[in-house]
Each structure stands twice: as structure tokens, then as C-alpha cells.
């Protein structure tokens, strides 16, 4: 197999994904259908189509919050309301001088961005339902303010919506205006979804611990997402007001908010096309069943239940034909340790990671007790000991998940800040987990690319607009990830959904993801658990090769063969204390180690 040919970076397309045309095809078909829509439909259906476009402008942004970042934002109608009133009031000029409608819309989007951030901020502290409740609270507040602030909003009487000038004043003119905005939103969110930011969002959703270990900062990521999502939601509000031609607080019911949320759920998390189809479906459905309008909430509920039960992955899963093909059942993981040199192509210096009189308690129980340890770059260091002797705890202290009560972890002599786990990635300390932490719905390749998130240079906005720096980032990340996958022997599975892999393959995927950081130190938590004897041998050769290019490797393991085969140095723990340390030969014959750990 010609590895070089396979590793050549492919040009990222508009969607930035690897399978170029087929991913964009459904969206292009929708684009053509949308452009040609006035040829088929007319009159009332034109209004419905326009409404679908307006809703999608909002849902496209909300999709990043809900579908990608996994934040349960139910009350997003608050931003629609805010945008509708801001645009209408500014354009009507009953409070301020009248603004041109486009300017009013732009101002509304700006205000929406700010409020999107305010509504979203609790997500940094609150989880799941608690955050959902705060967004609902905002929805109620905005409606109450609209009712009460009569001098501006007209209270229960309402205000007229803005009218956009020629050529967008006619029905079809306005349709094309909304359709254009919807298309731009689709393009931007698809760009973002396929960027390192989109992948990082899914990592926060499904594998937050691994995201932190890869250096991904949740606040830094969510702030621009909330800004963007709030801005497009408020812009959708301005369009909505114009479409309705007159708005009152009654127009912004919680049902509408639920519709947006359900459109994403039935569309499928982590997809653009799915929620887009979901939005169209939920906009059109009530019209087809006009006599049942009183039942609309009930119909949503039934639809949601059916989808959750029949296709939990939503419409996106239904359309994911690629991942229904069976995988070869006799596939084997064949790492290519010789490729590791190409991954670590820069000259690397020596260095040490030391633990100094480290102590850590869990509520009075000493998990680590006065421990000294030195890991050198270029060597494999084994950490063994009975279950519960503190091995994983040490890994968690080094990588910043636990705070030690005493002592320090030093990188080349400098003490590492306590609990700053994201900084570990910048210091090139990478790790894997006892139970693999993987984004199941993303491809293996995307999972590995998550590991290189911090090495991207482009900004959030550059990714939205698919500017050159974003495309360069993507090409580099893609090439590096393919190289890392080839190194661990999984390149053939690059495009497969990660939740279809076997346990042993997930372990190697995690190693590939860690290699994306080109780590100075690599910490592995039981990498051989669940592997066959053959796989363990290959893992050993791979870890040795990683050490040979100047990485310090710390392995927590229970397979004595692996430890004694590849380690330069072995430390044995018992009850959080050092039981023995030395070369594999010394440890193998150490009497206490044999008694407490190896067994006779």
C-alpha cells in the first residue's frame, strides 16, 4: 500500500469535509429547488416557503448551539421576538428617527448577538435542564417586556413590521431576500461545522473531558457561537416581522420555540441537512393538516416520539447511507511505527516531567502519599500497582483534572499550574483515557482531528466564511490526522463513524488523537486493556517508536508482558506510595512486588 499517495492532503471543498461532492449534493438540490420554487408554487405557498426560509435562518444558528454544542436552548424564540421588535420599532420611527429597513435589520442582528451571548452565558456554568430553564425564563421576560413597554412596542396592540424597498417589496422579491439569507446561513454554518470549531463543539457535547485534554476551551468556543446564533435569530425576527406585516406579543408563542428545538432534534444532532429538512417539514406539516391546527402541539409530540423511537439519530441518520455498509469483520489494526518520524518532523529537545513529594487526599483517604517520580523524554516509563493504588489519580494530577494538596508537578523544572487542564495541551502533554472518550457520531478522522484543534491559526469568522487561512488549517489538520491514523494502523477506517468501531480500535484512535499534539509527554491509561495478545505486541512496538522520536511515555498498565517488554523504567505503587522502582529486570524479581502485584 502506498502510504504517501494516501496521505496527500485533499483539497477541502465548500463544506470543508472530505467526501467532497456527495456531502454538498443534497444542499445543492435544495438550493435549485428553492431558486425555482416560484415556478411551481404560488400565492399562499409562497408565504409558507418564505416562512420556512425565515425559520431556517434562526434554526441554522440555533443548530450550532443545540445540535453541535449539545446545549439545551429551548427559549430561543426570545431572540426572534427581540429581533422582530427592534427591526420594526427602528424602521417605523415612532421612537427614534426612522431607520432604513436594512440598517434596522443590521442593528437588530447586532443587538441579537449581544443578547444571544447574555442568554447563552449561563451555559458555561449550568448544565442540561438548568440551562434549558434559564432560556425559557428569558423567553417569558422578553414577551412580558413587549407587552408592558407600550410606548415603544405598542403593548398588546403591536407595531407594523418593516417593509423592505424594491426589489424586495413584492411577494417573490421578499421570498428571494429571505431565501438568499437562508442560503448564506446554510453555507456559513456548513463551513463552521466542517471546521475545527465545529468538531470542537461536538467534542464538548460528547466527550468534554477529552476536549479539555485536547486544549479546547469551552468558554472561548461558546461565546462566538452564542453571538452568531443570537445575531441570525434576531435577523430572522426582523424578517418574520416583515412577513407577518404586523406583530403583537401573541405571535411569539412558546410553541414556536418548541418548533425550532424539535426541528433540530428530528433533523439529527451534528448535522446541517437534517435540521434543514426538519425545519421545512415542521413548517409545511401544519399547512397540510390545516383542519388539525388545534392539534399541532400534539402532532409535534407524536412526531418527536416516533423519531426518537424509530430513528434516534434523526433524519440525518436516515440519510447516512455511507455508514450502513458493513465493515470487514476480519480487519486488523496494523500500526506503521516507521511513519512516526514523519509526524514528529521537527527536531526535539530533551526534558523531564517530575513529580515532587506529591500528595493527594480524597476526603481523608490518602490516594497519593509523598511520591517522587521522573519521566524522561525518549523513554517509556511504566506505572503499575494493585487496583486502587493511585495510578489513574497520578495521571489525573499530571493532566490537571485533580488538584494535589501538596507537592508539585514540574515540566523541565517549572511547576505546572494546578487544575489548568487545557494548558497541558499547549505544553504538549497529551493523554488517553481508561474508557475511551470519543465522539461516537463523528468519523474516526474527525475524532483524530479534534486532537489538533489548538494548532489551527484561523479565527471563528474565517471559518464561517471559509477564508484561505481556514482552508489551510483544514488541509494541514486533515493531512496530519491521516498520517496519525496510518501510524496507529487505522487509516482504512478514517471515514467510518467512530461508534461503529470495536473497543480495541477506539484505544488506537485515542492514541492517534493524542499524537495530533505532537506530545512531548504522552500519558496512557491502560492502553492494552481489552486488546488481544497480538494487538498488545503491536501496541508495544508503536509506543517504543513514539518514545524513540523523543517523547516521554508514561504507561499505566496491568499486562506485565507489555510493561516488562517496552519500559525503560518501572515504578510500582501500593496504597498511593512507592513500593519499588527500577528497571524491568529489577522489578520482575522484587519480592514485595511479586507478592502484592504480580502473583506467583
Amino acid at each position, binding site marked *: *500500500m502506498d*502510504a504517501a499517495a494516501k496521505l496527500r492532503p485533499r483539497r477541502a471543498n465548500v463544506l470543508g469535509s472530505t467526501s467532497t461532492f456527495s456531502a454538498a449534493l443534497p444542499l445543492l438540490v435544495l438550493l435549485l429547488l428553492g431558486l425555482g420554487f416560484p415556478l411551481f408554487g404560488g400565492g399562499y405557498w409562497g408565504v409558507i416557503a418564505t416562512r420556512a426560509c425565515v425559520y431556517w435562518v434562526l434554526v441554522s444558528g440555533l443548530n450550532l448551539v443545540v445540535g453541535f454544542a449539545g446545549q439545551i436552548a429551548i427559549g430561543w424564540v426570545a431572540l426572534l421576538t427581540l429581533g422582530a421588535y427592534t427591526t420594526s420599532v427602528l424602521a417605523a420611527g415612532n421612537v427614534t428617527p426612522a431607520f432604513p429597513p436594512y440598517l434596522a435589520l443590521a442593528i437588530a442582528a447586532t443587538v441579537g448577538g449581544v443578547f444571544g451571548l447574555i442568554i447563552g452565558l449561563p451555559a458555561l456554568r449550568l448544565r442540561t435542564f438548568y440551562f434549558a430553564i434559564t432560556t425559557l425564563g428569558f423567553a417569558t421576560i422578553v414577551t412580558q417586556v413587549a407587552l408592558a413597554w407600550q410606548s415603544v412596542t405598542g403593548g398588546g396592540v403591536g407595531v407594523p413590521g418593516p417593509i423592505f424597498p424594491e426589489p424586495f417589496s413584492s411577494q417573490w422579491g421578499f421570498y428571494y431576500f429571505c431565501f438568499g439569507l437562508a442560503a448564506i446561513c446554510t453555507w456559513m454554518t456548513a463551513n463552521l461545522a466542517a471546521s475545527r470549531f465545529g468538531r470542537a463543539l461536538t467534542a464538548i457535547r460528547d466527550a468534554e473531558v477529552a476536549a479539555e485534554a485536547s486544549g479546547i476551551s469551552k468558554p472561548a468556543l461558546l461565546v462566538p457561537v452564542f453571538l452568531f446564533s443570537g445575531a441570525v435569530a434576531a435577523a430572522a425576527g426582523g424578517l418574520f416581522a416583515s412577513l407577518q406585516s404586523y406583530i403583537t406579543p401573541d405571535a411569539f408563542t412558546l410553541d414556536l420555540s418548541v418548533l425550532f428545538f424539535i426541528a433540530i432534534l428530528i433533523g439529527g444532532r451534528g448535522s446541517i441537512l437534517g435540521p434543514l429538512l426538519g425545519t421545512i417539514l415542521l413548517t409545511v406539516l401544519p399547512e397540510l393538516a390545516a383542519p388539525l391546527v388545534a392539534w399541532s402541539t400534539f402532532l409535534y409530540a407524536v412526531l418527536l416520539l416516533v423519531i426518537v423511537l424509530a430513528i434516534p439519530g434523526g433524519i440525518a441518520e436516515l440519510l447516512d447511507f455511507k455508514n*450502513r455498509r*458493513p*465493515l470487514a*469483520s*476480519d*480487519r*486488523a489494526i*496494523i500500526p*506503521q511505527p516507521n511513519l512516526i518520524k514523519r509526524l514528529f518532523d521537527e527536531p526535539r529537545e530533551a526534558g523531564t516531567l517530575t513529580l515532587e513529594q506529591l500528595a493527594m487526599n*480524597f476526603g481523608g483517604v490518602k490516594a497519593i502519599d509523598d511520591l517522587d517520580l521522573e519521566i524522561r523524554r525518549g523513554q517509556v516509563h511504566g506505572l*503499575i*500497582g*494493585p*487496583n*486502587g*493504588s493511585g*495510578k*489513574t489519580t497520578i495521571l489525573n494530577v499530571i493532566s490537571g483534572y485533580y488538584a494535589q494538596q501538596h507537592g508539585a508537578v514540574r515540566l523541565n523544572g517549572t511547576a505546572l499550574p494546578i487544575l489548568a487542564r487545557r494548558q497541558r495541551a499547549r505544553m504538549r502533554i497529551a493523554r488517553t483515557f*481508561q*474508557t475511551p472518550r470519543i465522539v461516537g457520531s463523528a468519523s474516526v478522522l474527525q475524532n483524530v482531528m479534534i486532537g489538533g484543534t489548538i494548532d489551527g491559526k484561523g479565527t471563528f469568522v474565517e471559518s464561517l466564511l471559509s477564508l484561505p487561512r481556514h482552508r489551510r488549517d483544514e488541509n494541514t489538520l486533515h493531512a496530519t490526522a491521516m498520517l496519525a491514523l496510518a501510524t496507529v*494502523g487505522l487509516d482504512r477506517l478514517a471515514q467510518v463513524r467512530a461508534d461503529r468501531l*470495536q*473497543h*480495541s*480500535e477506539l484505544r488506537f484512535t485515542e492514541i492517534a488523537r493524542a499524537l495530533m499534539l505532537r506530545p512531548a509527554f504522552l500519558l496512557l*491509561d*491502560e492502553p492494552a*486493556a*481489552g*486488546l*488481544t*495478545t*497480538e*494487538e498488545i505486541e503491536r501496541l508495544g512496538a508503536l509506543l517504543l517508536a513514539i518514545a524513540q522520536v523523543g517523547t516521554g511515555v508514561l504507561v499505566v498498565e*496491568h499486562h*506485565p508482558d507489555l510493561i516488562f517488554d517496552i519500559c525503560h523504567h518501572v515504578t510500582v505503587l501500593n496504597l498511593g506510595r512507592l513500593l519499588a522502582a527500577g528497571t524491568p529486570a529489577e522489578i520482575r524479581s522484587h519480592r514485595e512486588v511479586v507478592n*502484592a*502485584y*504480580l*502473583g506467583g
Partner: protein
Amino acid sequence: MPTLAAESLLQASDLSAGYGKIRVLHGVDLRVGAGEIVALLGPNGAGKTTLLRAVSGLLPWSGNVRFAGRDLTGASPRDVIKAGLGHVIEGHRVFTQLPVLDNLLLAAYDLPRGERIARVEEVLELFPEVAAKRHERAASLSGGQQQILAVAQGLVRRPKLLMLDEPSAGLSPVLVDRVLVVLRQLREAGTAVLLVEQLIEKALALADRVYALARGSIVLEARTGEADLPLRLEDAYLATARRTPQSD
């Protein structure tokens, strides 16, 4: 009852199962006699976990499975465990937010209260390191201790047949040995064991009989006493590796 004694405790014939349209098992025949320890070996991806999950009703399957004289067609996981077939799934999945003791009590939730507590205490005696943390949440156990807890959960019900999916994963060598000793005691008490394991030598030392599974089919069935077994097992494993194109 001589007629019943002739029948195996677990008898699967022509068992096929998979995930959606993707078939993993292709017509497997496997039996486990009462009080027998059977090892199920094979490379990763061969279908070992799928087989266990199918038998315990966690996956839809076709074919014929009988357990303790009863046809398991259409049986739910609940029916299966009530019939006396326990299953310790892989990857130490315990209820991390519950105390250790509650984890064990839950594993026997439908037994009378007094009996349930007695059995939990009995199991805790086998694993002092878990017993010492009985009132702590399972999340505070180390990964290996959680694995022990999962095995302990499987023991609480005293099943007729206990299926274990890689119980040694994440355990220190001494602890692996202790789990194996416990399994041997189980056999002496009359419980049958179906063991999926990657530590081949230890599994063979314990088991009475062995099956090797590759690409969803049984490729070897033997008694562990047979002299040429290691060689034949290696062949069974290598049959998979050889078919894989080697990278250059």
C-alpha cells in the same frame, strides 16, 4: 431426571445476530453443560460480545437458543436473567452515582429483602477491597475496583450460568487470579460459566472446554486437556490475521 441431564444447560444452535442489517454472527452452535466452565476465545471483532448480548436478549437474534430446558425465543433480558442466566458486560459499567452497596442490592432487586442482604454480604466477603468502600459511591472506586464490582453484581443472583465479558480487563495480575479462583469456586458450587477472555493462557487453565470464534463462526471446539490445543488455537487466530493484507 435422566432425560433432562442429557440436555445442556445452554444450547444455542444456528444462532445468527448483528446490528441492524449488519450480520456479525453466522449460524453459531455452542453449548454449555451444567457446572461447566467454557471459554470463548477469538480476536477482537470476531463476535464474542455479540454472542453474549444475543443470548441474554440484548440484541435480536435468529436461530434456536434453549436455556435450562426453556426456549429463549422472544425472551427479554429480564426473562433471561430471571431464568437464571447472568451476564457481566464488558467495560466496568456500574452505577457510578450510587453507593457500592446499592449497586449490589440492585443486582438482586427482586429477591426477598433478607436473602438479598445475606447474598450481598457473602459476595462482599470475596472482595475485601470493594467491601471496604461499601458506603462510597461507585464513582470513587478505581477502574479496576469498578470491574470487580461488576463481577460481584453478576454473582449476587447466584445464576445457573454466568457469562462474563472480559472480566480481567483493567485488573492487576493478582486480582485476575483471585477472580479466576472465585469462578472455580462457582463451578464447585454447581454454577456454569461462559467466559470471554483475552488472557488466553489463564482462561485455558481454568476452563473445561473452549470455543474459538472468528469472523462470526465457531472455528474450533475442544476440551482444554487436549495436547495440541495451543497449536490449533493459534491456527484459529492466525486464520484471521493472515487474511489481512499486510502494509508495507
